[in-house]
């Protein structure tokens, strides 16, 4: 019994070591954000800030993070709304009906899921220019990014709908509900959690979108936080304290959401990718 305990805690120590090594870049980002400019370039580097600086407010104002983050939020929010509105019903039908047509639709959706943004942006840029969408750069990004993540949303939501028993819907129909009614009052509420977690995933992915924003938005005041961060990281930049503080401000909310929803995200992700 004793020997077994020793082994289990030995493994725990090893696991902590692995997690520590893996998450070191995150740690290094936060530590650098807290260092003074002279300490950042100290040789040898310090692994714990000697004299922690709190430059969050300064960076927030100097790098205009309020503008960038607002644009990121607008884009992420717009994408999530479009995707949930157009994708939920499709995911439900794909989960309920299995025939040759639906197989073809599912296959198409899966193929659309793998198209790389950096390769799709060339035609999207030209088409959007021709139809005049380039007048509304943020809307352009929202439309393009929604098409990019819609397939993922459908695949993950479909996995959720598969778990809702068909009998519940049939019971509702016997009670006189129409299909629309049964879908909105029975099925969607039952699949609520899965839909919510998937939407959060889509939101987070779009919150960190880069390729489309970089290529479609030229005005600084409309660019999201990813493009903003990139513009502060020129080849000769040495403002690492600023860049790391910016990064920390940007990703901390993402990491908090992740820690809160860790379990659901993991199970949603695995059920969608392997089924």
């Amino acid at each position, binding site marked *: 019994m004793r020997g077994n305990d020793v082994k289990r805690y030995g493994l725990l120590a090893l*696991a902590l070591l692995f997690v520590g090594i893996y998450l070191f870049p995150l740690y290094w980002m936060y530590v650098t954000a807290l260092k003074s400019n002279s300490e950042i370039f100290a040789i040898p580097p310090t692994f714990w800030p000697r004299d922690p600086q709190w430059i969050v407010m300064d960076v927030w104002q100097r790098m205009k993070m309020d503008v960038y983050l607002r644009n990121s939020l607008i884009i992420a929010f717009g994408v999530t709304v479009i995707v949930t509105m157009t994708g939920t019903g499709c995911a439900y039908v794909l989960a309920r009906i299995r025939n040759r047509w639906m197989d073809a639709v599912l296959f198409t959706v899966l193929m659309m899921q793998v198209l790389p943004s950096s390769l799709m942006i060339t035609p999207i840029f030209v088409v959007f220019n021709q139809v005049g969408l380039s007048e509304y750069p943020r809307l352009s990004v929202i439309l393009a990014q929604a098409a990019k993540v819609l397939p993922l949303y459908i695949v993950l939501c479909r996995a959720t709908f598969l778990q809702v028993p068909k009998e519940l819907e049939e019971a509702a129909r016997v009670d006189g509900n129409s299909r629309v009614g049964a879908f909105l009052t029975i099925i969607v509420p039952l699949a609520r959690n899965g839909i919510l977690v998937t939407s959060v995933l889509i939101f987070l992915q779009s919150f960190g979108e880069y390729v489309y924003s970089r290529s479609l938005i030229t005005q600084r005041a409309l660019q999201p936080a990813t493009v903003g961060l990139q513009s502060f*990281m020129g080849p000769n930049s040495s403002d690492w304290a600023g860049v790391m503080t910016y990064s920390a401000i940007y990703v901390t909310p993402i990491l908090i959401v992740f820690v809160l929803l860790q379990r659901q995200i993991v199970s949603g992700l695995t059920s969608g990718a392997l089924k």
Partner: protein
Amino acid sequence: MSRFKNTFSDGVGFDTILVMIALGYLVLFSAFPLVYNIVMSMQEVDLFSLASFDRPFVGLDNYRDVLGRPETMQIFFNTVKFVGFSVAAQLAIGFGLAMFFQLDFPGNTWLRGLFLAGWIMPAIVVGGVWSWILAGDFGVLNHILLATGLGDEKIFWLSDPEFALYSVILANIWLGVPFNMILLSVGLSGISEDVYEAAQMDGATRIQRFFTITLPLMRAQLGAVISLGVIFTLQQFDLFASLTQGGPSNASNVFQYWSWQLSFQNYEIGVGSVISVLMILFVVLVAAVYVRSTRHEHVA
């Protein structure tokens, strides 16, 4: 009239509409650009003819142009290396970690979940953090290598043509490990404990058990994870933008980044779409193989 209405609230029409909304959106914003891309790859497209619908048709000239450029071969091999090394390392590390966290110790699933923190971060931020870690003079990686005696001089990871591509690969492995690990963990937990116990009674060693039980039973999962790894690696753009911009002089350039550079920095949009067409064709091929293989598993 009421029968017409009934199909939509009650019958096949309801399903059709729901599917058509999503499919319509995808056709408009994914399939149509895809086709348009093929058309553009056979036209001369630059900043001036961008907005016009009547662009000169050049046949396969753009394709010949791309194949004839001196940097094409280099970038091709870079892409192969980038995908090959990234996927192999992600798989090896991910599989190792998945098996480790399968062992019984307190907090194993929770600690395993922490790895996904790397996956959820915007890749542009990951690139930013890595470019600071890999910095030549003040980067912490060089310091650790020198201090532990693993290296004997500073490596300029991002500006040395020998190392630039491997720097991006390193960051990409970091991004991909969590996803590999989580998917493989699902497969591993599906293998019944009894099989291992039976093998152990028969005197199979740990290594024998791995090769005769784990590996064969994980074949489907491994296939899925490798295909997804190839697909995700070919989608990687942000790390190139934030780490090396494909440089120095294309030493770390890959097709998906080059295509963007041609279209958006050189404004040779026709040529950019040639690479885009060819790469998309390849990605879709890999994806089709993946989808077919998972389908087979279901039938079996």
